[in-house]
């Protein structure tokens, strides 16, 4: 296997997150209505960072939780058993604008599962989606509201986020 290509280094990741935070703030004037929900596992550290950045912009803390979508996936039984992580959302999402945060947007099935899962927890006023990488190949009509970087990929390639850096692994 050839060496993975770096798509975003640590500084570029940080810049992308800062830009996403400002875009979220620009799009959502009522800052008290915003809650962040990171999708296990890759979205969780990103949601935490976005939460810190938004807290600086708005001068108040932004409620942040994490969501595991394994129980709502449509491909259970077609793949290895997912490693189910706890869902921790210690606030009411009803009436809020929930910004879902994930690292890589690919087929869209994770986001579909996440939206189903969220509606079991309450009725958000609206749901927005922030991703660090959009690599294309959607299988569902799902689109991100905030994107760190669009990366054209082949279906068999892998996009990995590790220690604030994003890599593309060729087959």
């Amino acid at each position, binding site marked *: 296997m050839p060496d993975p290509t770096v798509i975003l280094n640590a500084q570029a990741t940080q810049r992308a997150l800062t830009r996403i935070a400002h875009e979220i703030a620009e799009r959502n004037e009522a800052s008290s209505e915003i809650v962040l929900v990171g999708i296990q596992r890759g979205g969780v550290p990103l949601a935490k960072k976005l939460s810190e950045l938004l807290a600086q912009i708005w001068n108040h803390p932004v409620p942040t939780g994490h969501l595991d979508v394994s129980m709502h996936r449509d491909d259970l039984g077609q793949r290895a*058993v*997912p490693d*189910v992580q706890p*869902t921790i959302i210690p606030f009411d999402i009803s009436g809020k604008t929930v910004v879902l945060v994930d690292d890589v947007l690919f087929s869209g099935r994770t986001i579909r599962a996440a939206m189903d899962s969220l509606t*079991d927890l*309450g009725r958000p006023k609206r749901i927005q989606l922030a991703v660090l990488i959009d690599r294309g190949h959607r299988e569902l009509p799902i689109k991100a509201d905030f994107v760190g970087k669009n990366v054209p990929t082949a279906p068999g390639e892998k996009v990995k986020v590790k220690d604030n850096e994003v890599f593309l692994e060729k087959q």
Partner: protein
Amino acid sequence: MPWNRKHLLDIESLTPEEITTVLDTARAFKAVGERAIKKVPALRGKTVVNLFVEPSTRTRISFELAEQRLSADVINFSTEASSFKKGETLKDTALNLQALNADFIVIRHSASGAPHFLSRVLDASVINGGDGAHEHPTQALLDAFTIRERKGKIQGLNVTILGDILYSRVARSNIWALTKLGAKVTLCGPATLVPRVFEQMGCRVTHNVEDAIQDADIINLLRIQHERQRKTMFPSINEYTTLFGLNKARLARTKPDALIMHPGPINRGVEIDSEIADGDRSLILDQVTNGLAVRMAVLFLVNGGKGPQEIAG
């Protein structure tokens, strides 16, 4: 991700990592039970048959609710209303259920090994809901979950199992699970019901209750199983209560943070005093709540324990 089993037949064959995977997964499912909507679609469109060839109320109810909370379709098949009375064999009954496209069979049977037998003749996933005096794996998993939840760990804890060990599948499964996870297990009860042979499973055996409970972090009381017992095993229930029942005087000599467990149904005034069963050191009702989460986790895991594909999403 150490789980790719299609069946849950016993604890003996599980690795410590697999047991830990069940406990970790159950943590996520416990949270589902605390939400307004206590249901997830993980087993939507799947059919589960609860084949209870030996009477059971609490285990069957727990499995049934777990299945419903996973959105599975559930059929209950019990001894009373069944074809067993008409002479059908277990294998034929199971093949008939499979012909109805059952995906999972939860079986309780008075014969040890019945679930293992079914797993060899069926394509469906088989989950052991208790087989004879052999194993009761989901009980051991929920007990381990409850201990870990309250004590934060299992490694190094002193766990005493007190009561009828010889006839107890709960004891056997618990011994396997706890020793694999690094607990020190002590067994105690009348010599006829707690033979020394259990030392071969890595346990300490004592017939002195004070000795058994003084250093225990967890005391797990087992019911005297009248239905599996010959009358010659001990002279009387009264004598058992006097020698081995957990009463206030005995509880006072345990560690102050020792916790009390019991798989139920409890016989108040026999193996446990009412006050202790209802007291704040009792985990008996936590066990019931956790049993639901653990059974959801087990069904979820065996459902997925088939495919090697990696997540893409």
